[in-house]
């Protein structure tokens, strides 16, 4: 591929306008992080393969907002991720980051032991111990194991018949191990619209590994996943994801941050990848979405997470909500809830993450009558943990409005 298009090459487009800085949720709340322009295109000019001595870089949460708003096309967050990976490779990656970066491995261990594992996760003393030993903040949101994975449910789930259309569902680790309900509702909503839902075998997309600087491992995971999904994409099936961050990983992040532009499987998968709301809205625009929604009488704060905004598709969930009678939705204009994947779990970053999310939490508390809606799992857990208000994936509201429960 053209080397001028590499992530690093994009620093040439920076005109120093500071627009990214005005949006960065982290540098807006803490002086510990000198901001995207500084650690991104600016310092990158001072970096060689020997790495960079700027420890403050590690405060970047990787939320990607800077890249989304940069009018000149600088891949700021991607530059930061690559630089951080090099820095961590030199300084050593903490055990904590190695553990929280492997949700599927955690899931495999935790699922069969769900009751015990969940007991520990809810136990204050245990969380205190984890904080002391691993530096995972004791108050940080941690999901509970569901006990039965979505995969095992899907294997026994009878396919929709008769069906004229089929679609592939990429559920990601979290729906598999922690929130199979979200995945089941997604399947129900798709089936309600006449789709036979194919659930191929799938493992982690490597995103948490990537954001913790474990690039080689991340590449292994994402390539394998792409290899599993590619045959469907090649045959023309669209692939939908409920995890907006993992969907973005397959659409773009792996290609750019992990420098896998030449991976043909990944490119093919990316070309067929849709966020579930993006997909449903496109159905609606073609007149193919069922609109037999029953009224939902509630007021819901909706937060489009930072990774959702990275898709560059606007906020399709909002438009879908607009189809549901009675539903009043208040869009949050807050860019980030703070957690940004695994960032907010870390002891040294927990307070920053909470401060980033504070305006969102205030809004959610003020607006919600019952639930809040948000596309990303870690953000939902963060919102719930911070406000006590249950947070749901947008498909859950569609599911309810379709009367599928």
């Amino acid at each position, binding site marked *: 591929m053209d080397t001028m298009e590499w992530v690093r090459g994009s620093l040439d487009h920076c005109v120093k306008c500071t627009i990214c800085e005005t949006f960065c949720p982290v540098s807006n709340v803490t002086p510990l992080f000198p901001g995207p322009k500084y650690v991104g295109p600016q310092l990158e000019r001072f970096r060689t393969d020997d790495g960079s001595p700027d420890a403050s870089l590690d405060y970047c949460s990787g939320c990607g907002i800077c890249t989304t708003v940069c009018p000149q096309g600088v891949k700021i967050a991607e530059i930061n991720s690559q630089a951080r990976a090099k820095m961590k490779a030199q300084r050593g990656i903490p055990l904590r980051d190695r553990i929280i970066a492997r949700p599927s491995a955690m899931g495999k261990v935790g699922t069969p032991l769900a009751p015990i594992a969940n007991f520990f996760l809810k136990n204050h003393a245990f969380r205190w111990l984890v904080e002391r030993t691993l530096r995972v903040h004791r108050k940080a949101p941690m999901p509970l194991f569901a006990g039965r994975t979505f995969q095992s449910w899907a294997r026994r789930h009878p396919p929709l018949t008769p069906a004229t259309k089929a679609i592939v569902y990429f559920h990601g680790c979290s729906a598999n191990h922690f929130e199979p309900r979200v995945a089941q509702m997604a399947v129900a909503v798709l089936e309600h619209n006449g789709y036979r839902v194919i659930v191929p075998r799938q493992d982690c997309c490597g995103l948490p590994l990537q954001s913790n600087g474990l690039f080689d491992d991340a590449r292994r995971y994402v390539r394998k996943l792409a290899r599993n999904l590619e045959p469907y994409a090649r045959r023309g099936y669209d692939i939908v994801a409920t995890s907006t961050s993992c969907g973005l990983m397959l659409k773009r992040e792996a290609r750019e941050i992990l420098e896998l532009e030449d991976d043909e499987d990944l490119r093919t998968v*990316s070309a067929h990848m*849709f966020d579930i709301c993006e997909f449903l809205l496109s159905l609606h625009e073609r007149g193919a979405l069922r609109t037999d929604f029953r009224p939902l009488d509630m007021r819901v704060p909706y937060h489009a997470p930072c990774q959702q905004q990275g898709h*560059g598709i606007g906020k399709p969930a909002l438009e879908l909500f607009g189809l549901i009678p009675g539903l009043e939705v208040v869009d949050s*204009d807050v860019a980030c809830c703070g957690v940004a994947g695994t960032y907010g779990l870390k002891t040294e970053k927990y307070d920053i993450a909470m401060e980033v999310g504070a305006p969102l939490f205030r809004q959610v508390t003020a607006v919600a009558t019952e639930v809040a809606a948000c596309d990303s799992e870690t953000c939902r857990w963060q919102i719930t943990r911070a406000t006590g208000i249950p947070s749901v994936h947008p498909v859950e509201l569609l599911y309810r409005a379709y009367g599928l429960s």
Partner: protein
Amino acid sequence: MSADAVVVGAGLAGLTAGVRLAEAGLRTTLVGKGPGAMHLAPATIDVLGYAPDLVERPAAALPSFVAERPDHPYARLSADTVAASAEWLSAHMPPLAYVGTLEENYLLPTAVGVPKPSAFVPEAMAAGDLRSGSRFAFAGLRALKDFYPALLADNLSQAKLPTGVTVDARAVHLSDPGTEADVSPLGYARMFEDREFRSVVAAELLPRLEPGESVGFPSVLGLHEHRTTWLDLQDRLGRPVFEVPTLPPSVAGIRLFHALRDAFLAAGGRLLIGSTAAGAETKDGVVTHVVIQTAAARPTPIEARWFVLATGGFAEGAIFLDSYGEVHESVFGLAVSGVPAAGEPRFVPRYFDDQPMGRAGIAVDERLRPLDADGNVAFRNLFTAGAALGGAEPWRELSGNGLALASGFAVASAIVEWAS
């Protein structure tokens, strides 16, 4: 995706067009790679500042200005449109009251102390008007590296002002609380929103002010709660307080951006920030789709009936000059006018001399539709607004926001009229 109208560009031109289209009931999608120059520019609506001598009365100056420059975009925009667009803006943005008329330019101090002509200005800047002469104290903030009140005051005392007007200016350096050495304008804007901070600043400043002095601050007086912040400071200091624009980011401009963005969303517009318009599909002299690049490795066409190109000029990259000296418009492949012939220099060695490429941009008909190389309308349903327009050198004329606002306003009128 589909819409009635697609606007490409989230600057003042694009958002103005977008808000008006959405409010007229058109399903409007606005695609912007990022926010535009509003985040950087002072938020004053400068209609015409130099022609090339200082313009005191823009309404009076415009007719001869366009008569001498038939290719200037103002030659396609009547003075009424310009005035109407400014009126629309101030009526529309209650939190951001604008003051001024097309009849007379304000003279507001810049951060180096040059009296700069502006027609419509945010009310919190108006008290800096130098035309009547006055006594000013300019407040320097300890950790803000983007404002040097001593140099400002020094230059202002020497500035060329209307005959008979004298200005007495001095600097007051504040040692506000805080330990960080380097605080951005936005950082200060947040600090000023805090009552406690304002009271500390006022307490330090008040005893050092002299009777009759107005106080100029760098433009950092609050973001979301700007008006309260400004009025409260004015109260505490018991005298007019005003903002002086300084280096990017522009807090005043961000306020304007927020107001327009919110109005667009409130009117039901679809906003796609972070995606790039990378091309278009056309048929029989009509644009049918704009093709955008989202995160996925596939082009996403947006179908619509009307399209607005508001991608800014060379500054935003949608119109670009390559290393061979060729100019390209990257979304619709439009012809770019005002480019010197091949082999001729694009720029000259002395910065303030007339630059041969200075006025390059999209040439348009009287309805602001782009023209092809032969001077014919390129696409019947494509309109252009803002800094993408050729024929102007807005940074020299000081006409940037005036042009962007009026042309954004005008293309929306043209489309709405067509739609009904």
